């Protein structure tokens, strides 16, 4: 059997399984990014808060998450949390790998998104807040109707980058046995040793997914610009 045949045979055999893994990768990424944006918006606003406790708490969260590896965060939630609960309550507390994955990735992504929001909000000129307040809006109304809608448009490109980064980072989840894209590849190679076809296939699928996201971001960016101008 020549190399090409070997390659085609294994890639063909593993591909359906890889696609199923990719679906899981997309699910974890999309859910985590959604929660990450919610967490990140509040944490970003919190970092801008005048309340020192809120500000300190949000700052510590961002520092802790950005200063430690995602793999360790995933382990802490998947293995560490059940261990802690067992020690405290004496009850077993198994966590589903998918749930642990979404928790870990949401909390992780939230920290990066917080910084994106903070800088996005700070990039809106001071006069906007002043104009809103001068009309009698309170701080929350001014944020909601005036500052955040403008900040959102500006942070779409960095949010897109964060989405792509998170999508690639979910490959780490193979370490807790979540059968996402990489794990599916590993499972196939462990019985066939066909590493080269499998991992090039894995790469190709990641590339298609990230390119799709980045195209979509560019499209959104252009569309919002059109709205801004038309």
């Amino acid at each position, binding site marked *: 059997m020549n190399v090409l045949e070997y390659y085609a045979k294994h890639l063909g055999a593993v591909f359906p399984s890889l696609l199923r893994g990719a679906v899981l990768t997309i699910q974890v990424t999309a859910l985590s990014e959604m929660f990450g944006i919610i967490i990140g918006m509040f944490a970003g606003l919190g970092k801008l808060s005048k309340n020192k406790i809120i500000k300190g708490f949000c700052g510590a969260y961002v520092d802790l998450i950005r200063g430690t590896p995602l793999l360790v965060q995933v382990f802490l939630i998947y293995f560490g949390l059940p261990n802690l609960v067992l020690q405290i309550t004496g009850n077993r507390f198994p966590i589903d790998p998918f749930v642990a994955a979404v928790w870990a990735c949401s909390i992780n992504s939230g920290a990066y998104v917080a910084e994106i929001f903070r800088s996005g909000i700070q990039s809106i000129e001071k006069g906007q807040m002043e*104009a809103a307040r001068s009309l009698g809006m309170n701080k929350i109304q001014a944020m909601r109707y005036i500052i955040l809608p403008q900040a959102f*448009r500006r942070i779409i490109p960095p949010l897109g980058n964060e989405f792509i980064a998170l999508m690639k980072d979910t490959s780490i989840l193979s370490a807790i046995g979540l059968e996402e894209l990489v794990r599916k590849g590993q499972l196939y190679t462990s019985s066939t040793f066909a590493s080269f076809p499998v991992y090039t296939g894995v790469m190709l699928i990641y590339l298609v997914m990230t390119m799709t996201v980045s195209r979509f971001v560019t499209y959104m960016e252009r569309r919002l610009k059109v709205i801004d101008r*038309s």
Partner: protein
Amino acid sequence: MIVVKNLYKDFGNLKVLKGVNTFIKEQEVVVVIGPSGSGKSTFLRCLNLLEEPTSGEIIIDGVNLLDKNTDINKVRQGLGMVFQRFNLFPHMTALENISIAPMKVKGLSREEAEKIARDLLAKVDLRDKEDYLPDQLSGGQQQRVAIARALAMQPKIMLFDEPTSALDPEMVGEVLAVMKNLAKEGMTMVVVTHEMGFAKEVGDRVLFMDEGVIVEEGSPEELFNNPKHPRTKSFLSKIL
């Protein structure tokens, strides 16, 4: 209507207002002039607490602004503010810029708020621009929308912070015309400006500020034709 007593404002070590005292009557048009850095904009911005005074008293319609129990958002609804750089909301059309505060702050329905907004756009002569975004309007048009936006809250007092300073010369007139009409309708106005023509024509009283205090005040005729203080004389000789 507005009473200001011993108003001080520091920015760190920089003392910008050093004891401003004045009062402004209902329907009065007060023009504040003075060299840059004299504290005139800071004074104006203190009147709706965009700047927090370091000490002193500001009483508007009997409400002490610096009292901790005063709801400043409520007070600000009665004070319209027009900025040098317009500060329109760039993501909203002219109509939305004007109707957002009546809807969200006063709780009016969209129909009610848009009716107010359309009437105001007509008043500032921009009836056909309601769907335009700020970017698509000239500076003079933007400033007129900004005036309409402030008026939409039906304020009793309008504050103008150098409203024509960022405009191309040919657009100054259209903004001043809107302001003159407002004055004619009896709006109480405090206007920081370099437009001496406007001060003379519309102003009931002119305050000359320098180095954080009101150096001299009087009717436009008195102040422009017969300034008493040497600093007023020197300032007027440079600009007239």
